[in-house]
């Protein structure tokens, strides 16, 4: 049986709940990852922080947010808003309702989740909820390619 563990990226690169938005942005930039897993002080998976979500908070107009106080008109204002929130905690901006998969799950389950949720990355945990890595759409396609061969 093709299980997730054989195809996932075994990476524990992550940010913590009390890391700052600035920490997360720098880490996203250095690792070239648009999304990072968020863990607690024992490395249990707690959610994800998306670059898209951070952008939403500094450019609300583009995403249809109604909060007039926050409406921005140009890049400089976005940068200004970012400087205001960069010291805020990751836990304030993370998504907690993120679907995870287990390393022992069948790869076929991944396709279903990725198609239904439009997730480009799924984070993998073990039975005890510890982060174990992630699997991307590219990994899924690679698995499908191997299957056809």
């Amino acid at each position, binding site marked *: 049986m093709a299980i997730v563990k054989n195809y996932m990226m075994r*990476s524990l690169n992550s940010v*913590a709940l009390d890391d700052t938005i600035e*920490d997360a942005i720098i*880490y996203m930039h250095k690792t*070239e990852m648009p999304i990072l897993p968020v863990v607690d*002080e024992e*490395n249990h998976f707690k959610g994800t922080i998306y670059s898209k979500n951070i952008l939403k908070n500094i450019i609300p107009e583009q995403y249809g947010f109604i909060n007039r106080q926050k409406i921005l008109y140009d890049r400089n204002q976005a940068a200004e808003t970012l400087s205001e929130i960069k010291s805020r905690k990751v836990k304030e901006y993370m998504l907690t309702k993120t679907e995870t998969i287990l390393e022992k799950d069948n790869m076929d389950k991944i396709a279903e989740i990725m198609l239904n949720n439009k997730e480009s990355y799924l984070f993998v945990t073990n039975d005890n909820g*510890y982060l*174990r890595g992630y699997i991307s759409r590219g990994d899924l396609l690679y698995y499908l390619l191997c299957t056809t061969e």
Partner: protein
Amino acid sequence: MITTVTLNPSIDREYFIDEHKAMKDQYIYDDENLKVYPGGKGLIASINLKNLGYSDVQNIGFVGGKQGLYFEKMVQDYKVTTNYVYTSNEMRNNIKIIASTPPSNTLYNDYTYSVSKKSVKEIKKRFKRSIRESDLIMIAGSIPDGVNFDIYYELIEICNELDKDVYLKASGEALNRALKAKPKFVVPYFKHTNKILDVKVENREDYIKMGKELQNKGAQYVIMPFHTNRLLFDVDNSLYLLSPEDYCIRNLLGAGDAYNAAFFDYIFQNGFDFLEANRYAAAAALDIAEHKIVFLKGRQEIEESIDNITIEELEV
């Protein structure tokens, strides 16, 4: 989960050429003559442990710049779990030129890598949250510029706080300062210096004296390299000499890392027995040294070398 720590990893490149000569351009067309792999003491031990069948082995450390991304992908190819703090500076590269006529081996060791204070703070935080599933942690190798010599002491103190045992392979001031945290296993090494605790060691008596001193300063067990032998300092103050017999060394690259990994393997497979764990570890190192390989292949090869390892107790 098995945890190893490599704070100063490198991308290692080996070039195999006919003749290493100044002003002579070299052209390499055969990929057999150019090898690129991730380097670093704890990391190589991780790869060995994966080859011995362990499912979850993580390597924690710094990696830097765009080369860090490449390095991490290389490590992932060995199925080792990566847990890296990315730094702004590019990581280091070691180059080895291996020539056949006349036989020579030239190393260009790169020690230019440096990390920021913020990255050091981050690695301590990352380390603390990432070792929860590990009972025995291997910390090995040199430290990059920008990292205080107290770093190993601080990491071991985190392990003590969380009731984890530490296997420390270190040298110089980082080793000196780590001792006060009382690491369980200490393996000094002599890549840059032939000193232990700032004292020059030359003959066996010097090594024995300094091994005892390492214990007096906090190490519980000491595994002291002594040429191709090991001096083993047990916690009960007894002393042993471990030696290989009937061997032919063809390669030393990777032998020490195989020793470290196999020491762990013995404990995980059989429970802790200081002398037998070292005998098994030495057999693994001998397997590497007698073959032109860098990584362990499996337990069978280790078992085949066990009978070539002797341990005798020495009078103190």
